[in-house]
C-alpha cells in the first residue's frame, strides 16, 4: 500500500516525471532509503568495481593497487581467444538444452499431476526431491553414479549386457557436457513443474469443459485453452531457468571442473578459473562484465514479462 505524504494533482501515471513521483511518494522513499543505501554498498559498488577492474591488467606478481590501465585490451583478449568461443558455445548449449528440457519435463509432470489420482501427493513430493536436495550433494551423488570406472550406471550397463565396459560419461570430451546437462535437467524440472502447476490452477475449468462439449480432443484442449493461459507463467519460468543456467556453477564445477580439456567449461566456471586459479582479476572482471550485460538483457525481458499489462494502470 502506497502512503502518499504530499498533495497530488490527480492519480499518478507511469509516464509522469520521476522527480514528481518521488516527491509525491517521499515518505515511501524515506522508508526504503536504508535498504537502498545497503544495496548501493553491497550491489552497486561491487558492480562498479568490477567494471573498473575490467580495464586494468592485474598480473599475479603485482598488488591490485599497482595494476596498470589497459583500456579495452582485456575485452579484446577475450573476444580474440579461441577459448572464448568454445566456452560461449558450451554455455549456450548448456543453457538452452537445460532450460528447454527442464521446462518440457516440468510441463509434462505438471500436466500429469494436475489430474486427481491416488498417490498424487506422494508422487508430487517425490518429484520435488531433486529441487530441494543440495546442489553439492546432488553433484557428488551423480559424480559417483557416472563414475567412469566404478559408477553405478556403468556397472549396470555392463551387467545387463548393454555395453562391454562401463560408459565413459565424464572423462570424454564428447559426453561430459551432455552428462552434466542431464544432471541439471534432473535438478531443475521440479522448479518448472511447481511454476506450471500453479499456472494450471488459473485455467478456467468451464472453458475446458466447453471445449470438450464442442468436440475438441485432448491435444486441442491443451493447445487452444490450456497453453494460452500458461503463456505468462511459462515465459517467467523459462526466463528464470535461463538466468539460473547462465549462472550455474556448482554442478559443472564440482563434477568436472570444466574438463576434460575444457569440454564442459561454461562462462561461470571459466571466469572462476581465470580469477581464482590464474589470479587474473582484470581479465576475469571483463568476462564478468560481458556476462553481466547478457544477464541484464535477460533481466529486462523478465521484468517486461512480469509487468506486462501494468502500463496504464493507476498507481
Amino acid at each position, binding site marked *: 500500500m502506497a502512503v502518499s505524504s504530499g498533495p497530488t494533482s490527480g492519480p499518478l501515471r507511469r509516464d509522469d516525471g520521476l522527480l514528481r513521483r518521488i516527491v509525491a511518494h517521499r515518505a515511501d522513499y524515506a522508508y526504503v532509503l536504508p535498504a537502498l543505501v545497503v544495496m548501493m554498498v553491497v550491489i552497486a559498488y561491487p558492480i562498479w568495481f568490477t567494471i573498473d577492474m575490467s580495464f586494468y591488467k592485474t598480473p599475479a606478481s603485482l598488488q591490485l593497487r599497482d595494476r596498470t590501465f589497459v583500456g579495452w585490451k582485456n575485452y579484446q583478449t577475450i573476444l580474440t581467444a579461441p577459448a572464448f568461443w568454445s566456452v560461449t558455445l558450451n554455455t549456450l548449449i548448456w543453457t538452452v538444452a537445460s532450460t528447454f528440457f527442464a521446462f518440457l519435463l516440468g510441463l509434462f509432470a505438471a500436466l500429469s499431476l494436475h489430474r486427481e489420482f491416488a498417490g498424487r501427493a506422494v508422487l508430487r513430493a517425490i518429484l520435488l526431491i531433486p529441487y530441494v536436495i543440495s546442489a553439492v550433494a546432488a553433484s557428488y551423488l551423480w559424480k559417483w553414479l557416472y563414475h*567412469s570406472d566404478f559408477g553405478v550406471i556403468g556397472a549396470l550397463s555392463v551387467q545387463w549386457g548393454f555395453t562391454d565396459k562401463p560408459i565413459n560419461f565424464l572423462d570424454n570430451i564428447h559426453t561430459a557436457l551432455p552428462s552434466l546437462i542431464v544432471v541439471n535437467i534432473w535438478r531443475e524440472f521440479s522448479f518448472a513443474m511447481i511454476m506450471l502447476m500453479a499456472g494450471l490452477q488459473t485455467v478456467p475449468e468451464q472453458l475446458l469443459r466447453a471445449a470438450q462439449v464442442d468436440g475438441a480432443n485432448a491435444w486441442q484442449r491443451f493447445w487452444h485453452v490450456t497453453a494460452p493461459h500458461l503463456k505468462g507463467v511459462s515465459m517467467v519460468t523459462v526466463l528464470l531457468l535461463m538466468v539460473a543456467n547462465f549462472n550455474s556453477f556448482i554442478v559443472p564445477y564440482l563434477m568436472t571442473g570444466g574438463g576434460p580439456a575444457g569440454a564442459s567449461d561454461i562462462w561461470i566456471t571459466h571466469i572462476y*578459473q581465470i580469477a581464482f586459479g590464474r589470479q587474473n582479476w582484470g581479465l576475469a572482471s571483463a568476462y564478468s562484465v560481458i556476462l553481466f550485460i547478457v544477464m541484464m538483457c535477460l533481466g529486462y525481458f523478465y521484468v517486461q514479462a512480469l509487468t506486462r499489462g501494468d502500463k496504464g494502470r493507476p498507481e
Partner: protein
Amino acid sequence: MTRRNDPSWPGKPLSALSAAVRTAVITGLAISPGAAMAQEAIDLSKWSPEYVRSIAGTGKFDTAAECAKTVPLDYAGRVSVWYTGPADAEPEITKKFDKEFWEAFKATYPNIAVEAQSIVYNDLLDKLRTSLLGNAGPMVVRLQILGGVEFAAKGYLQPLKPEDVGYTPAEFWPGAMKSVTYDGASYGIPTNNETMGFIYNAKIFADAGLDPEKAPPTWDDVVTYSKQIHDNLGIAGYGLVAKQNAGNTPFRFMPQMWAYGGSALDENSDAPTLKTVGLNSPGAKAALQASYDMYVRDQSVPVSALTNTQAENQAPFIAGQLAMMIAHPAEYAKMVDLAGKATGKDKEVADEVVANMRYGLIPAGPDRRAVVFGGSNIHIVQNEYVEGGLDEMGAKALICFWTSPEWSTKLAWVGSNPGNLRGFQTEWMKERLDTIKFLDVTTSMLPSGIPFPAIAEAPEIMNIIIPDMLQNALTGKMTVDEAAEDAAAKVEALLGGM
C-alpha cells in the same frame, strides 16, 4: 637420452650444484649456533634410509635456550598467526602436538600474547589475499611451499632469513631455501618438508607375474608394469591423476617429467633462471607420451583419471582394484584407517591390501630420479598490512620456536618431516621412525626433491597449464606434440606479461 643424476644409474656423476650444496650443508651445520649442541653434523651426501636411522636420536636440543638468543624469554609483546592446523579427521597425535606447541610457547614466552587462527588449507590463500587488501593480515602466516611466492612478489612479506631467528640457511634443505627465495632475497623459513613415495600392492604384483618386493625402478617400467597388471588381472595398474586445476596433478606428473629430462621452466637445473620454458623439450614430450601410452594406448590406468584427484585413488587401492600410486608418507596410516572402517568381505580385502602395501622410491628416468619437494614455510607480513601493526620480536620468537629442531619435528609428526635438518637428530625423529611404517623410505627421497619454480606465476603453470596439457593429450583433443607446444606457448605468454 643420457642417464645421469641418479644413484640407480651406473656411472652417474653428482651434479656440481648438488655437490656444492651438500658440502655447504655439512660445513654450515658445523658452524651453526645450534649445531654446537648436536652430536654430529648432518651429511646430506650420505642420505639414505640407513643414514636417517643412524642419526636419529643422536642430538639433544634446548629450544628455549636457542630462541632466547634471538628474543629474550621475558619479552612482552603480541603475535598473530594464521596457519592450517590439524583437521578433525587427522590423527590424535597431530592434534596433541599442536595443542602442546601452543602450551609450550606460552610457557617459554609467558609475556607474548598469541592470537592463532587455524584456517583450512583450501581457504587460507584466499583469506590472506582478501585480508591483505584491507591491511588486516596477521603478523605471521604459514603457507604451503608454493604459497608464499605470490605474496613476496606483491611486496606483502618482510624479508626473513634463518639468521634472523638464530639459525643458518645450511640447517634447511637447499630445495626448501629455494622455495622461500624470490628475486634473490629470502622471505621465509621452512617449517616442514616432505617428499612422496611410490606405493604399490605386492600381492597384485605377484598375481600379475611381477616381483612383489621390487617397486618399478624406472618410469618406463611403470608403463610396462601397468599394462601387465591391467592385461593379466583386468584392474588399473598405475593411479594416474590428471584433473584440471588440482594440485595433485603436478605433484604426480612433474616427477615423471623431470625424470625424463623435461621441466616447466628450468627449475630442475643446478642454477635455475626461471626464464626459459621447458614444456616443449624432448624430455617433457617423452613424459607426456608415457602418460598417453598408459591412458590411451594401453588403457591400463583408471578411465576416471581426468576427473580424479589422489583422494579418488584411495578407494580403488584399498579395494585391491589399483596397483600403484604416488602418495604421501601418511598414506599408509590412511589405508589402515580405511581398513579399520571396512566391514565384512570388504574388510578382508582391505586388510589384505594393507598387509601387502609397499613403499618404494619414486621411479627414475633417463635423466634422473626426482620428486616434488613439498612442505610449508613460515613468513612475516610487512607492518603496513598487519592489523594493529607488526610486533617483529614477537613474530620472530614464534618463528624461532616453530622452526626449532624439536617443534619442526613434532609438528610434522605423521605427514611430513622437520624443516630444520637438526630435527632428524632428535629423539622424536627416532620415535617417528620406529612407529611410522615406511617413513625411512619417503624420507630418503628428500635429496631428490625439486621445488616448484619460485615465481608468482607458478600456481597457474602448475595447477592449470600443465593439467591442461595432460588433458589435451589424453583426450585426443591434441597430439602429444601439439599439447606440449600449446602449453609451452601459454607459459611463454604468461611470462611475457600477457
